[in-house]
């Protein structure tokens, strides 16, 4: 990323969309909308002071909604460029409320609430699509109860939980446990507030709240001069008790929380499934094995079971990695498709499957279930394909042919990575070089034609 950001021959137009394309190979005219960030890119140093002080917290898309970010944000810490962006859907100032804190704390004077979209046009010889893919939404598969059972997560969510810079700093805290801990935090905050109020009243009347409340309940303060005040105190104390009780219960519950140690990985979620995508997404077997290996590195007691039809470990060193995972990282592989995920005691997901080697339907309880979701064509691709006039295959990936693997149906427009079809990192990197090669050929061809014309 940094290499791209710093290269003198690369102009990086982040947070921008292509709106129109005219011309042909060697001579395209592209209209690009540079979306307003409400932050001046030439001034912003990426220091992050604004995000720190911003009072509005929003669910963090980069962390798959498992953490929160501010309404002014950079997508993720190492993102290039580091220019921050204001999210107009949540920013108080842009919503018409009083705020503007970011503007005050920004030492670079980069905040500009009046910024507008900018339309620019580019003259280019060739175009490369590298728009990637979307993670398949597994809530479409009712029997897996994703979103219904909190401890059923996608591989991408799990990736964020495993990440040292993620919302749990790499600890495998279960989503259900995190919810309880968040509730405890909220209740404790409220409790602190109510304690402060009670302390004031206790000082005023020189009596403990508990003592007073007991007497009040017995009717001692009926017809008191300060009946109103006494009633207020009693109400406050009742509210206090109403916080204490569930808080104690939740705290007791939280005592038993440990990190997730018994993991199930479910393969082919949305892939090799005629209801959704009949194709194999290619990389998911390997990311499940990798996530299981890393989870075991974090916590040596972790055991993982990978449920799959075929474990497709087909690239260099992959089969060996799979076997090593089995030998060293407590991973077992079960051949069979998971038919149902239910919720068991203590928010533990229960996986029901046929072990095809034993020829038996079995069920097992886990701490957490990770769904290896399919590689889905990215949502914007249909619109983009129309703009460029390139054909898509029947699933919505950009169409190519095996003999011209990076050429789209439009001359001068090329593709690489998962925009073309599901593939892993080394394949994507190799394809990126292939697309660069084809684009360079166009440029050279154009130059020699021009030279000929001059001659």
């Amino acid at each position, binding site marked *: 990323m*940094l*290499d791209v*950001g*710093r290269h003198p021959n690369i102009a990086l137009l982040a947070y921008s969309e292509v709106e129109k394309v005219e011309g042909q190979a060697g001579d395209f005219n592209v209209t690009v909308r540079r979306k307003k960030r409400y932050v001046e890119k030439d001034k912003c*140093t*990426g*220091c*992050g002071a604004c995000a720190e002080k911003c009072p509005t917290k929003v669910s963090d898309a980069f962390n798959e909604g498992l953490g929160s970010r501010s309404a002014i944000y950079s997508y993720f*810490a*190492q*993102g290039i*460029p*580091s220019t921050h962006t204001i999210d107009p859907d949540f920013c108080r100032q842009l919503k018409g409320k009083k705020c503007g804190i970011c503007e005050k704390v920004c030492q670079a004077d980069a905040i500009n609430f009046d910024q507008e979209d900018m339309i620019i046009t580019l003259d280019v010889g060739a175009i490369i699509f590298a728009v990637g893919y979307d993670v398949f939404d597994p809530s479409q598969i009712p029997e897996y109860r994703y979103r219904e059972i909190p401890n059923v997560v996608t591989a991408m969510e799990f990736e964020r939980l495993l990440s040292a*810079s993620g919302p749990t700093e790499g600890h495998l805290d279960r989503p259900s446990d995190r919810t309880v801990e968040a509730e405890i935090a909220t209740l404790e905050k409220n409790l602190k507030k109510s304690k402060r109020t009670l302390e004031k009243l206790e000082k005023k009347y020189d009596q403990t709240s508990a003592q007073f409340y007991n007497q009040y309940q017995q009717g001692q303060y009926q017809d008191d001069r300060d009946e109103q005040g006494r009633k207020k105190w009693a109400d406050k104390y009742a509210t206090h008790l109403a916080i204490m009780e569930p808080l104690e219960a939740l705290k007791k519950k939280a005592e038993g929380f440990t990190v997730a140690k018994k993991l199930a990985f479910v393969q082919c979620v949305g892939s090799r499934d005629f209801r959704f995508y*009949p*194709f*194999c997404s*290619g990389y998911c077997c390997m990311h499940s094995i990798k996530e299981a290996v890393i989870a075991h590195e974090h916590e040596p007691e972790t055991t993982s079971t990978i449920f799959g039809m*075929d*474990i*497709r*470990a*087909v*690239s*260099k*060193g*992959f*089969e*060996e990695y799979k*076997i090593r995972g089995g030998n060293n990282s407590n991973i077992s592989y079960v051949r069979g498709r998971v038919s149902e995920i239910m919720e068991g005691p203590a928010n533990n997901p229960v996986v029901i499957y046929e072990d*095809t*080697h034993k*020829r038996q339907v079995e069920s097992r309880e886990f701490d957490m279930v990770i769904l290896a979701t399919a590689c889905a064509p990215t949502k914007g691709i249909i619109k983009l394909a129309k703009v460029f006039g390139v054909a898509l*295959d029947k*699933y919505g*990936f950009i169409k190519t042919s*095996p*003999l*011209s693997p*990076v050429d789209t149906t439009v001359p001068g427009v090329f593709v690489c990575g998962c925009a073309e*079809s*599901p*593939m892993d*990192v*080394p*394949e994507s*990197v*190799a*394809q*990126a*070089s*292939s697309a*660069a*090669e*084809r684009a*360079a*050929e166009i440029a*050279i*061809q154009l130059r*020699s034609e021009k030279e000929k014309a001059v001659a």
Partner: protein
Amino acid sequence: MEALDDYTRTLPYVAFVQRHLYSCSEGGINEIKKGIEEQNLNRVVVASCTPRTHEPLFRSSCEEAGLNPYLFEMVNIRDQCSWVHMQQQVDGTAKAKDLIRMGVAKAALLKPQESIMSEVCARALVIGGGIAGLTASAALARRGYEVVLVEKKEGLGGMLNRLHKLGPTMTDAGELIEEKIREVMQHDKITVFTGARVTAVQGFIGKFDVEVETESGKKKIDIGVVLVATGGRAFVPEGLYGYDGRRVITQLEMEQLLKEGLDTDVKNVVMIQCVGSRDQERPYCSRICCQIAVKNAILIKDQIQDARVSILYRDMQMYGIENEEMFRESKAKGVRYIHYDLARPPQAESDQVLVYHSLLGREMTLTADLVVLSTPLVAQEDANVSSQLLRVPVDENGFFLEGHVKLKPLDFATDGIYLCGSARFPANIREVIAQGLGAASRASIPMSKGSVVVEPIISVLADEDACRGCSLCVALCPYSALEIRNTEKGRKVHVIDVACKGCGVCAATCYQHALTINSYTNNQLEAQIDAFLD
């Protein structure tokens, strides 16, 4: 982190300490530059991840702030510290302190270095005239570069010459390869040597001296970059499943039968997957054999509709969109799939195959007029020779080892040498063509720039008087970067700057301590050791 921050402030020479979550982010880099400028720093030490990926970035940041990039030292407190001591936090932090102290001690003695510039000859050597080498050669020629293509066989085309049709589009392999050969032969930028071998490669990126041996003798050619496209070879399953090349054959031999047209007597075909792969001896999965089996099964059914084709498999490796579609097509055409376990492999007899169907839990006997064994692609027999000639590594299976398995799949660690096709790892036609184009792109970069800048951390003759010209170092240098020259003072070693990789073998060998490595001098390393012992 805080403990390290506080500790570092107490170290001698340290003027300024700053902490970042991501020092390599744009913000982190800007802070480093700001630090250099505002604090007037004359050395920078970053204690973070690995110099393997990040040192060039930090060095160039120093340079942008006006500091010589070689006055920078990187301390790896991740790979060799926090990662390996994950479970021992206290000891790990103590070690990190040691490492930082050592890095600072060395940094104090660093000397500025100037990078070395060298021209690049705009001519590529492509070794291997199969589909990978042909694709790369044609691409480079279209870009306007001269190409020398060397093929050891009498004719171009490689493995594709022996194949019938290519999945999933069932393209005729012969027609495809003929077309590619024609394009290459007609291009005036490409010189083709068939029946030829590369016999010597000296030099370095931009200036390789290559010797090619052909029937008509040896030729010396100046070369700028080298592409390895030597392909793989099909494993011959001698002694396995009664292989005889007639009734029990390989998929490669099946291709030939399909080309000729199958004998109509062939009614029962049994294919066995993973023959000679995913076992003790050859643990890797050869990636493409399942696709080939499924494709050939479809072609058999196309030729003889009532043939019974069974594929005995362990995992059907039909990754991706096209493979999985082909897999379904085969099922629709009646190809049968039977799962077996490595622990109970099938047994082939004269006209039948016995298999324990592990999903049904019972033995089955399949009639077989033809048994087809799916064997892996293995490394070329002479891959080791090429590896030594080019001084590039091969992996434990004999395939060439790329610079980084994820981030540099088509480059070698050695500058100026690139890799594509099944010489790297078995790949199907789509993947090989993509890699051929990709390797051409990688190789074109130094040629289009016309020059390369080489790291100046190299061997230097620090004490000329001490050198006795014994040439022990010359014999041991893996990069041919040393030579003996006659000087006024007698025989002395000379370092060819651009070829030197700074590996240090010469300096470690020299019993006269005449040679040393820039930025790894004796006094710098001694300072590090002293700091550790403090």
